[in-house]
C-alpha cells in the first residue's frame, strides 16, 4: 500500500526523523496560508501516487505566498500519470549543502530487509548503484533482533562519512530501519536526505510502501494519517469485475477465492496454490494464450465460493472457456473445487465439459475429484502433467490447436505489474 508524500513525511516525523517545515493543502488558499506560516521560499508539490511529477509540471518553486497560491491552483488541476492530485504539499525550500539517500527495502530473495545508504542523493538509487556502485552501501538485517545505531553507523562510515555528519546521520538511518520494521513497510525511502548549510539533516522527500496484508494491524497509524478502509491505494481503481471478486471472497471465512485482476483475453482462469497463480498466468501467456483474468484460489474454499469465482469469470464478457489449474494442493480439496466450478457451469446453463478447457488440480481428495470430473466428461490431468503442459492444452483448446507458442501480442502486462501475490 502506497502512501502519498505528505503521509510519508508524517510517518518519518513520527519516527523522530527531522523534516522540513511543511503542510498539506487542498485549496490555493490553504497553500497560501501554509506558505505564510513557513515564511520564506517554498516548493509546491503535487500529491499524486505517481512518478514523474517534476517532468509533468507538478513541482514548482515560489518566493511569496501569492506565488504559492497561484502554483497550487494550477497543480491542483493537473493530471499526472492518469491521476488527479489529492492536494499539494507546501514545503520549506531548505538551504541544502549536500544530498544523501537513505532507504530500506524488502529483499524477497533473501527474505530480509536491506538497508541502503548513499552519499549521492536526489537521483534514483538504481542509477547510482549502476553508475557509481562505490557510492552505495548496503546491508541486510534481521527482522527479529532490534536494529542498533551501531549497524547504521557502520554502514554510513563505510562510504567515508565521518565526524559530525556521521553522528547526525546515524540516528536517522537507524530510525528509518526501525520504522520499516514497526510499520510493516516493504519500502521506506528518504531521497533526498538533505544536509543543510547549518549542518542539520532533514528528510526533503520520502516514499513509503506498506505491506497490504498489514493494514489490519496498522490501523492506528492509518487512522492517524486519515486513511480509510475503503482506500485501496492501488495503481488504478479496481474494476467492477475486481470488486465483484472481493465480494466472492468475502462470502464466507473459508479459504480464498478472489483477488481477481481483470485482463481482456478469452481464457478465464481459476488458478492458485502457493504461488501457482503467477506461474500459471505466465504459463498461459507463454503458450500464446490470452488470459481474461488473474485470480487466487486456495486454502480450501467452500463449494459456494469456488462456484462464485468460476461464475464471475465465466460471465466476464469475452470469456470463451475457463482453465482450472493449481499446483499440487494439500489442504485445498480437489473434489470441492471440482464441485464448485461444475456447479457454476451448470447454473449458468453451460455444459461443463465444453466450458472447462482443462482441470488440473492434483492433491488432496483427487480420486474423489476425478470421479466428479469423469461424471461430467471434463478433461482433467493429474500431477504427471506439468503446469505448463496443462496451460498448453487449455490454450490449444481455445485456439483450435493453432495457438501454441505464439506470443500473446495484446498482453504486455506481466505478473510484476499485477503486483505481489499472497500465496495460499
Amino acid at each position, binding site marked *: 500500500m502506497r502512501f502519498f508524500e505528505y503521509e510519508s513525511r508524517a510517518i518519518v516525523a513520527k519516527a523522530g526523523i527531522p523534516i522540513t517545515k511543511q503542510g498539506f493543502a487542498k485549496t490555493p488558499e490553504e497553500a497560501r496560508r501554509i506558505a505564510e506560516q513557513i515564511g520564506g521560499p517554498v516548493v509546491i508539490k503535487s500529491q499524486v501516487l505517481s512518478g514523474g511529477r517534476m517532468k509533468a509540471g507538478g513541482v514548482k518553486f515560489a518566493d511569496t505566498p501569492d506565488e504559492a497560491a497561484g502554483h497550487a491552483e494550477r497543480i491542483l488541476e493537473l493530471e499526472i500519470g492518469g491521476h488527479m492530485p489529492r492536494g499539494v504539499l507546501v514545503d520549506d525550500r531548505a538551504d541544502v549543502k549536500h544530498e544523501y539517500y537513505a532507504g530500506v527495502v524488502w529483499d524477497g530473495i533473501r527474505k530480509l530487509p536491506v538497508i541502503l545508504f548513499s552519499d549521492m542523493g536526489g537521483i534514483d538509487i538504481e542509477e547510482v548503484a549502476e553508475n557509481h556502485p562505490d557510492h552505495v552501501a548496503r546491508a541486510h538485517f534481521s527482522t527479529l533482533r532490534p536494529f542498533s545505531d551501531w549497524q547504521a553507523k557502520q554502514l554510513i562510515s563505510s562510504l567515508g562519512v565521518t565526524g559530525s555528519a556521521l553522528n547526525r546521520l546515524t540516528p536517522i538511518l537507524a530510525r528509518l530501519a526501525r520504522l520499516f520494521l514497526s510499520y510493516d513497510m516493504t519500502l521506506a525511502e528518504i531521497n533526498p536526505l538533505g544536509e543543510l548549510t547549518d549542518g542539520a539533516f532533514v528528510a526533503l522527500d520520502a516514499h513509503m510502501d506498506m505491506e497490504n496484508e498489514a493494514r489490519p494491524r496498522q490501523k492506528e497509524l492509518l487512522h492517524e494519517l486519515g486513511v480509510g478502509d475503503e482506500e485501496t491505494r492501488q495503481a488504478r481503481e479496481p474494476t467492477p469485475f475486481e470488486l465483484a471478486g472481493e465480494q466472492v471472497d468475502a462470502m464466507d471465512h473459508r479459504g480464498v477465492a478472489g483477488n481477481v485482476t481483470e485482463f481482456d483475453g478469452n481464457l478465464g482462469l481459476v488458478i492458485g496454490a502457493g504461488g501457482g497463480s503467477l506461474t500459471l498466468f505466465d504459463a498461459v501467456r507463454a503458450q500464446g494464450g490470452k488470459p481474461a483474468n488473474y485470480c487466487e484460489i486456495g486454502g480450501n474454499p*467452500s*463449494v459456494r465460493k469456488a462456484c462464485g469465482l468460476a461464475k464471475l469469470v465465466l460471465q466476464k464478457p469475452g470469456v470463451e472457456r475457463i482453465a482450472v489449474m493449481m499446483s499440487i494442493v494439500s489442504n485445498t*480439496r480437489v473434489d470441492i473445487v471440482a*464441485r464448485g466450478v*461444475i456447479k457454476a457451469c*451448470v447454473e449458468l446453463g453451460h455444459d461443463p465439459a465444453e466450458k472447462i478447457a482443462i482441470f488440473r488440480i492434483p492433491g488432496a481428495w483427487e480420486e474423489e475429484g476425478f*470421479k*466428479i470430473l469423469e*461424471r*461430467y466428461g471434463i478433461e482433467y490431468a493429474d500431477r504427471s502433467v506439468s503446469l505448463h503442459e496443462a496451460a498448453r492444452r487449455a490454450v490449444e483448446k481455445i485456439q483450435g490447436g493453432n495457438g501454441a507458442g505464439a506470443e500473446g501480442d495484446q498482453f504486455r502486462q506481466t505478473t510484476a505489474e499485477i503486483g505481489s501475490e499472497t500465496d495460499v
Partner: protein
Amino acid sequence: MTDALFIDVEVDASVAQDRELAAKLTEVCPVDIFAQSDDGALEIVQENLDECVLCELCINAAPPGTVKVIKLYSGETLPAGAAVAGG
C-alpha cells in the same frame, strides 16, 4: 427431491423426529447441512448439501444405518455399502 448436484443425505424418520438426535446432527455437521425446525424436528438444508465434506460425522452420531450420504456423481453411499432408499 434435492436441487443439489453432488450430494444427497437420507435420514431415517425415527432420527428426524428425535429432538436429541436432531440436535446432535445439527451440531456435528461442519457445513450446516442439518438444522432443527421450531418443533425440534430435523431439517435438511438443501442449499448446503453440495458443501458436504464426506466426513461421516453425521453417520457416526446416529444409530447405525439411519443416516446415509449419497454421492450423486458416482452412486456410492456413506457408510460404504449402505443401500439407497428406492434404489
